[in-house]
């Protein structure tokens, strides 16, 4: 699959970054393997701070692996991965770095039996001492911050609802609120709107974009839908067969380009 030849629409070299340094995420010739099989093969990319980088590609392209490499869940077997100024290949303090990175997995990673507020409060855990956190001793200011985050994502009326009682869109918002409570410098989100309908997906993406700007946070999302990638990314990196096949500005992601990349006009 790596040998499939698709001419890059614009190479990193020919596609100058819209914003200059500093950079939140920088990958240089990164290779990641599962059980000796390379899943990500020589990917280089950079996400300037405060921007929205969209990783687009078909299923099984290695997008999730790439995202997990950015917060150190997976380590590169070759190449260099630098996130928020920390070199992941050599750093031993991954917990410290991870506390600065929000992460929303594809199935959101919520605890269904707990309330929205309890889930949102988990955003504080990386910065809390072990004993107070185990005793659930959240300071009033921390509870207020979690409640505020839930209000900001439009769940003010659902603060004490258990997550299993919420709709798909509301669950998405709880996951976003949890990430907001963490106050991350970088938010990694893995196809977190893929289960929503068109309108809901756009509502959630509008919300995330607004919050990203307010909090001056860098956003790296994996998207399946070309339309979402085009409308919500500052830069789009296209991954196929574990390799980066293109890096384009959203405005350049026209139907012709999509057809050349995916054959069917869609990321799926």
């Amino acid at each position, binding site marked *: 699959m790596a040998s499939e030849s698709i001419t890059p629409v614009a190479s990193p070299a020919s596609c100058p970054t819209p914003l200059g340094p500093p950079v939140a995420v920088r990958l240089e010739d990164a290779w990641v393997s599962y059980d000796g099989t390379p899943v990500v093969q020589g990917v280089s990319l950079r996400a300037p701070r405060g921007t929205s980088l969209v990783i687009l590609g078909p299923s099984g392209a290695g997008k999730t692996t790439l995202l*997990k490499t950015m*917060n150190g*869940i997976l380590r590169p077997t070759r190449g260099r991965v630098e996130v928020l100024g920390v070199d992941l290949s050599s750093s031993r303090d*991954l*917990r*410290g*770095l*991870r*506390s*600065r*990175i*929000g*992460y*929303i*997995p*594809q*199935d*959101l*990673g*919520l*605890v*269904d*039996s*707990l309330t929205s507020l*309890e889930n949102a409060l*988990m*955003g504080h*855990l*990386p910065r*809390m001492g*072990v004993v107070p*956190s*185990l005793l*659930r001793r959240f300071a009033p200011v921390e509870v207020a911050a979690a409640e505020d985050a839930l209000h900001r994502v439009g769940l003010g009326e659902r603060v004490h609802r*258990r997550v*299993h*009682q919420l709709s798909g869109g509301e669950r998405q918002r709880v996951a976003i609120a949890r990430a907001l409570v*963490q106050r991350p410098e970088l938010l990694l989100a893995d196809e977190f709107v893929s289960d929503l309908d068109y309108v809901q997906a756009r509502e959630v993406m509008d919300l995330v974009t607004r919050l990203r700007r307010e909090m001056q946070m860098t956003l790296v999302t994996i998207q399946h839908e070309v339309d979402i990638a085009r409308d919500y990314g500052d830069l789009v990196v296209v991954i196929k067969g574990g390799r980066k096949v293109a890096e384009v500005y959203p405005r350049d992601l026209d139907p012709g380009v999509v057809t050349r990349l995916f054959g069917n006009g869609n990321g799926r």
Partner: protein
Amino acid sequence: MAAPAAAAAVNGEPAPGLGRGLRNNLLLSLLLVLLLVSAWNTGSDPLRLARGLPNLWVLAGEMLPPDPALLGTALAAMAETLQIALLGTFLGLLLSLPLALLASRNLYPRWVVVPVRGLLALVRTVPSLLWAVFFVIVVGLGPFPGVLATALYSLGYLGKLHYEAIEAMEPSAHEALAAMGATRLQVIRYVVLPQVAPHLVSQALFMFEYNVRASAILGFVGAGGIGFYIMGYLGQLQYNRVLTFLLVVLAAVLLIDWASLRIRDRFTLASTGSRQRR
């Protein structure tokens, strides 16, 4: 045999392989042989049972009517049995939880998991009655060795059931929290325990039900409870008194099963929004 195979081939389905059918027949034959050998070695003879059936009527005649004068004693002894089961289950649950966490492959490395699982397997291998004999020797007669035996037996079983539940948990929330920089203890506190809590409660109640029944015979070896009286009256061939105690055990077990189902149902409904199947 040929007709279904042909029909399957006509329908486009692959015909069942001859080797597979042969293997199934061999397995069935082996099972049949094992059953016959077991019946022979254990003297399981239906005719013998038929010949013995009249004894059942004799025994029933001797058991009836139950002796109401012993009802107070039976209730007090049953209360002691319930206390043995309650305390034993609670201690077993308390001890099983940390061990189950340490035995979960999705939480701890192999060098921790393997020895802890070995310990749980060892504890589980010995039946509670044998543990009771052991503790009667160690701490003497009475309900206390019964509590210890019940606790140890519960520890072995609940430990296994809990680590299986923890490993079957959806990994997403665990992964999300760890990716945010939470510690392992925080992950256990905020993800693992809330997710497996309904399972823990359900299994603990099942264990309690089981322990009530098991504790009823711990008295046979001097470990307290209603079994002490049942054994005593059986030895004196006072079957009507035995029946009084057995009826109290039956009533207690039915009551506890009913209450336990209600509690489990309510707890599962509150925490997951879905009612348990019955």
